[in-house]
């Protein structure tokens, strides 16, 4: 069985289209981010209280809001999750209780207001504002540290320009996924940041495979142009890239469909990331290396792919 026999697609020749495609995706994401006033952070980052609750009988979000308003928690966000028959809600308030915690205060009020409608507390999360700030910082540091680690490793194993290509591709992936989350108004929680880092690792994995082939081919096919060598290498690894993406996509889609509410958004981020990451390792990473080589080599009039090969 084989989906791709030997392919000969001029990928580098179409790189202008890829730039436009990627550019517009990123632009849409940035516009959405500006319109929404930045990413929508989950309580991991903002601090506050979130209560997930499942009632036995029918109740509307308005009923719950009335109850929460009585306590004086004004800007509560009440969201129904699952199918309506689940009677399941997430209640989010900015407050973190003093003395008794906010989750308990809300539970008590709901019991008082709707004594006949029993409920089951699925989860309760309270995050102090201080922790929120710390986690935000930690998330940024984590992303920067991993990008730096990648930059160093790829520079050491290949060359600096390859590292630039890889990091641009990763940045591209994270920006687009962030944009998709903003467009769909999904929250950026700690788990989503973890998903971003996983996407970074995954997309890089794909990119490295292509780079490896370029390095190998650069040694064998010395006389050819950098563009051709890259094209050959991407085509040779295309089958592998697609197959691996497919197997990974299979499992994350399964995770998304039946993994349950807790990791729903997490697996959604992975789906977007795997698709975008595969695309970027083919259409973004290598073209960026080529552009970089052309700019630095223009004085000598020759594009060097690998210093070590000459």
């Amino acid at each position: 069985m084989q989906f791709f026999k030997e392919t000969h697609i001029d990928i580098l020749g179409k790189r202008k289209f890829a730039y436009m495609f990627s550019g517009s995706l990123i632009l849409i994401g940035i516009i959405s981010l500006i319109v929404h006033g930045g990413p929508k952070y989950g309580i991991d980052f903002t601090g506050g209280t979130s209560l997930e609750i499942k009632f036995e009988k029918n109740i509307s979000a308005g009923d719950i809001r009335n109850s929460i308003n009585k306590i004086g928690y004004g800007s509560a966000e009440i969201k129904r999750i699952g199918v309506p028959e689940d009677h399941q809600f997430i209640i989010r308030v900015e407050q973190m209780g003093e003395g008794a915690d906010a989750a308990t205060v809300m539970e008590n009020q709901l019991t008082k207001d709707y004594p006949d409608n029993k409920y089951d507390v699925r989860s309760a999360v309270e995050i102090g504002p201080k922790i929120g700030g710390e986690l935000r910082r930690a998330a940024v540091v984590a992303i920067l540290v991993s990008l730096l680690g990648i930059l160093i490793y790829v520079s050491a194993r290949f060359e600096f320009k390859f590292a630039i290509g890889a990091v641009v591709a990763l940045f591209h992936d994270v920006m687009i996924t962030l944009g998709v989350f903003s467009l769909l108004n999904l929250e950026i929680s700690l788990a989503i940041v973890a998903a971003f880092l996983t996407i970074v690792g995954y997309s890089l994995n794909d990119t490295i495979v292509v780079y490896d082939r370029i390095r190998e081919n650069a040694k064998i096919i010395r006389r050819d142009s950098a563009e051709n060598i890259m094209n050959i290498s991407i085509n040779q690894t295309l089958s592998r890239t697609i197959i691996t993406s497919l197997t990974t996509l299979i499992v994350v889609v399964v995770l998304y469909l039946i993994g349950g509410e807790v990791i729903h958004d997490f697996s959604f981020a992975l789906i977007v990331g795997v698709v975008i990451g595969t695309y970027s390792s083919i259409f973004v990473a290598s073209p960026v290396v080529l552009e970089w080589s052309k700019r630095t080599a223009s004085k000598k009039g020759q594009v060097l792919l690998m210093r070590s090969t000459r």
Partner: protein
Amino acid sequence: MPRNQLLKVVFVLALIVGSLFSLYPTFQLGGMQKNETFLVSRITKLTGLTKTDIEVGLTEGTLESKVRDHTSQDSLENALQLADHLIKLNTKIIKVEGKAIRRGLDLQGGTYLVYEVDLPQLLNDVAKNKDQRLIDIIKATQKQAEQSGNDFFDVLQENFRSRNVRLNRYFGRKGETDDDIIKELLKASEDAIDRTIAILRNRVDQFGVSEPSITKQGTRRIVIELAGIQNIQRAKKVIGTTALLEFKLVRDSEMVWSVLNDIDRVMRLKRKGQQPAKVDTAKLAEADTTQFKEGKKAENKEVSLSDLFGGDTSQTKAGKDTSLLVDQNTFNEKPFTSLLRQVTGRYSNVISVPIQNVAAVQRILQLPEVRQVIPSDSEFLWRIKPVVVGENSYQQLYLVKKEPELLGSTLTDAKVQISGGAQSLTSGAAVVNFQLNSEGTKTFAKVTGMNVGKQLAIVLDHHIAMAPNIKGKIPSGSGQIEGMSSIDEAKDLALVLRAGALPAPVYAITENTVGPSLGHDSIQKGQKSAIIGLLLVVLFMIFYYRGSGAIADFALLLNIVFILAFMAGFHATLTLPGIAGIILTVGMAVDANVLIFERIREELRTGKTIRASIDSGYSHAFKTILDANVTTLITAIVLYSFGTGPIKGFALTLSIGIIASMFTAIFVTRLIYDIITSRVALKKLSI
């Protein structure tokens, strides 16, 4: 079979056997837990005990007596037998649990709490002299450290330096350098946290939670994980109580009066120039209260906060209900005392504050000019709970000597007792009896002997628990604390007193509770998606790579066995994101094989022999796999060091999966190919 091939096979088989051995307790546990659920439901049916009752009974070792109390005679024998089975099973489960994969709180339900030690309070406690400047510096440090995320002690040192104040003015010895003092303070705070952890562990253990985890995080945080706990509110109260027990002498009425007069004077000056409050909406006085001190019947009236504090509305924004209850006859003359009442039949030096006035009184006592007129060796303390007289509640205020006579650290034991005796007011209520050590007993005897007729307040966390009259010298070193509203409350108080006071207060900054129903759903859904995802990938590999796909599938299964065995062996925690990590590994682990197989196909196309193709396929792919996996590993390790709880679980399974896949996808599959090709002369490779 060649010798080195045989060695490799033996090595792989040994690993598999070892893994299965390490996984055995986890399988065993699954069956045991099913049995347990069954037994519990049988006992519930027979006795009417709830699941919670049974669990608490198991941890406290009181299950048998509970069953005896709740079961009718005819089914008692049967129920006791079941209970006996359950107890035996439970001890086995606890033993096996220590060797099995631990399920994270998100899978079994439970609470994850992060506490922070109150460093400012700790510094305040160890300071040689405490003045406003020190308080200001500590406050500023706390705020800056929070905003910048820098280390508390670095910011503290910087703050002292920028204000040109030497640290040895407040801490350490004379002549010590700032650096040395910071080092000492750092050590003191570390000590305090270690002691806090020890005490909290002691408390949580007594509370009866299975496998509680209490760990230090950073320099001032404590993470507490409680699995499947039934009453979170109660547990949090037990953990969060500082339990600082002090014995302080209550000042007599003459001194109280003179201090109140001084405060009235200050408040009168403060209100000067204000319109006298209007006296039209007067309410009738309650029959059982009188004006404080003068003994006349109080004529209650409602005024607003701004009447009291003047036009300064910035102070009145907080409360919703700002109306106060004052005595209209004395309000203008004695603004402070008019807020206070005396409840008939109580000690004359105890001030009762109507509940709606408490906030205002608290604020007045905080005013700098008021603090100046309170003698420096005395302080006002509130009683823990309000008293109810008729329809009204009053919070009581005591003036006590600041210096404690005796500390709770001399306490050796505390027990709950249900007080008996029909004539006693407190009969039937729970009290806590405590016993002091020999040194404490001596001091206690001396203090009680010297202060007969006075009141000795028992102060818990800066609130008065009770303030009995000393009737005579107490030589036994034992005493009693009353006033608990339930047996549980008394039990918890005795528990925290026994475990000892925390060196500094702690407060919760994060709480994450997962209900058992969500945990149960998560496990089921996680397992289901893992199995379906795995099945699809396995089928795809066979469909796409035929025989070679089957070899890769074998490696994949082995990979999962290794991940789980590693987790069981190191007693690591499996979380829902951890399951996601395993699932993701399934997708990514086949990547190594895809790389190899694609390479072999390429080599075959160039016309090489099967063996040569396999050889060069593996050797070419190896370098790529290594590079690709190292970079993924970098991000997984970053993830592990930055993430908390569940995220760590994800990074862990992902990392183990990547490393294990290098072994299974390269070494094991190669071995299988070698064995096949060395025995059979393949005409065509199934790939």
